[in-house]
């Protein structure tokens, strides 16, 4: 995807190129609110502990002032030993992490090596830098590889930071307050999980764009424990539990498949 304004500086003043298109789009809504892109308002955090890495995230995705998804999954799979929390534009974090995961899988299979975190970080940094911030993805990558337990953050413009504890998203200040106060080196698993839980909880309580449940993902040499949800919101809407809508009739129609053509091809064998 070529960025049209990389080599040419944009002209000063207002650019009315999209005015006609925007008017047509607004016409479709007839005076109502046009849709806003879905952002994961978000509080995400990560902590390195003695045996690995703990990642945590809230589960609220907002579209303007509306909660678009109450149980959004912000901890994305990258590799068996690497997971990534994403904040920013929901579509961007989702697709970027999927792309990264695909590339690392291909790499694993062709080289026969398990992927390392630095490789994931470099690929992300390359891609996000190339797009100069147009891809709104702030990511926290955590994982365990042959070189140890690592936690990195990659910003939307392509800057990378390696830290023992991190928080990103709109609720990061609240979460970071907790982490700065209570982080210790070489924590035990339970302490680390509790610390991340409290940090995300602080984000949820103090940031309107973060909320609902808390997901936790623990990555160690032995494997991954993806606990979703780790803590459920106290404010769940229990009026619409499964079974609320009674089933009146049920009709099952099996699809009749008939064999149309059957052929036998001899395989050439050596």
């Amino acid at each position: 995807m070529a960025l049209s304004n990389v080599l040419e500086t944009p002209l000063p003043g207002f650019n009315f190129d999209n005015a006609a298109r925007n008017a047509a789009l607004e016409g479709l809504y007839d005076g109502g609110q046009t849709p806003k892109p879905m952002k994961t308002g978000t509080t995400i955090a990560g902590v390195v502990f003695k045996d690995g890495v703990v990642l945590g995230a809230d589960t609220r995705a907002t579209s303007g002032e509306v909660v678009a998804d109450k149980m959004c999954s912000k901890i994305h799979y990258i590799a068996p030993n690497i997971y990534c929390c994403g904040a920013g534009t929901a579509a961007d974090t989702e697709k970027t992490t999927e792309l990264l995961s695909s590339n690392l899988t291909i790499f694993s299979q062709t080289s026969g090596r398990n992927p390392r975190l630095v490789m994931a970080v470099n690929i992300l940094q390359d891609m996000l830098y190339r797009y100069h911030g147009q891809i709104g993805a702030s990511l926290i990558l955590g994982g365990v590889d042959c070189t140890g337990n690592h936690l990195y953050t990659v910003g939307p413009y392509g800057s990378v930071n390696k830290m023992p504890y991190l928080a990103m998203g709109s609720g990061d200040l609240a979460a970071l307050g907790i982490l700065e106060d209570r982080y210790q080196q070489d924590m035990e698993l339970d302490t680390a999980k509790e610390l991340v839980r409290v940090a995300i909880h602080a984000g949820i309580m103090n940031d309107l764009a973060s909320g609902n449940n808390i997901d936790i993902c623990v990555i160690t040499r032995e494997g991954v424990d993806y606990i979703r949800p780790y803590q459920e919101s106290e404010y769940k809407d229990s009026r619409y539990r499964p079974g609320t809508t009674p089933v009146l009739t049920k009709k099952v129609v099996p699809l009749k498949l008939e064999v149309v053509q059957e052929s036998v091809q001899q395989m050439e064998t050596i």
Partner: protein
Amino acid sequence: MAAATMNPFFSQNINQNSLVPDWTSQEVSTGTTIMAVEYDGGVVIGADSRTTTGAYIANRVTDKLTPIHDRIFCCRSGSAADTQAIADVVTYQLGFHSIELDAPPLVETAANLFRASCYRYREELSAGILVAGWDQRRGGAGSPSQWGGSGSSYIYGYMDSNYKPNMTKDQCLELVGAAVALAMERDGSSGGVIRLASISEAGVERRVILGNQLPKCSTH
């Protein structure tokens, strides 16, 4: 010093969500104070450790002294993403050059590589980079003492009055440490810890001056 500055045109073109603070969409910048001082046999480099996104400190323990080769470092100021990207590109180019040459590269070569990238893409980049190191021929930092970054404006007077030619390595370390501390005191975009490195034929020695060990500057 290789430099390219521009006000970035690129900003997140998503509708402004009022729930999300606007520093989340601002570019991460190393506000910075960076310095390099030559001594006989090597060079001492120093930097603060603060990276900001608007008014928020994204990283308070940043390492702005980036190795480019075994005996060549660069001090980064400006956009965090741009300087990291340029440093990666030059590390590759210099490494390739060194392998082809079958000899350790010159500091001057590294500086020219930085200059090439910074100049060619000067419209798109925001980067101020100091290159320093040791090599067989001249090494150094281009001139006896160099400084850059937003915090450096506050220490021109200090450097002019306290820099003397032919200092020893320890005197240089003390000078750089004190100067960066003074800049951090006055510049909002500089702070954290002081990272120092001394580069000579023998190798690279790195050290950190933590917040509570900062040289005491003023009496109030």
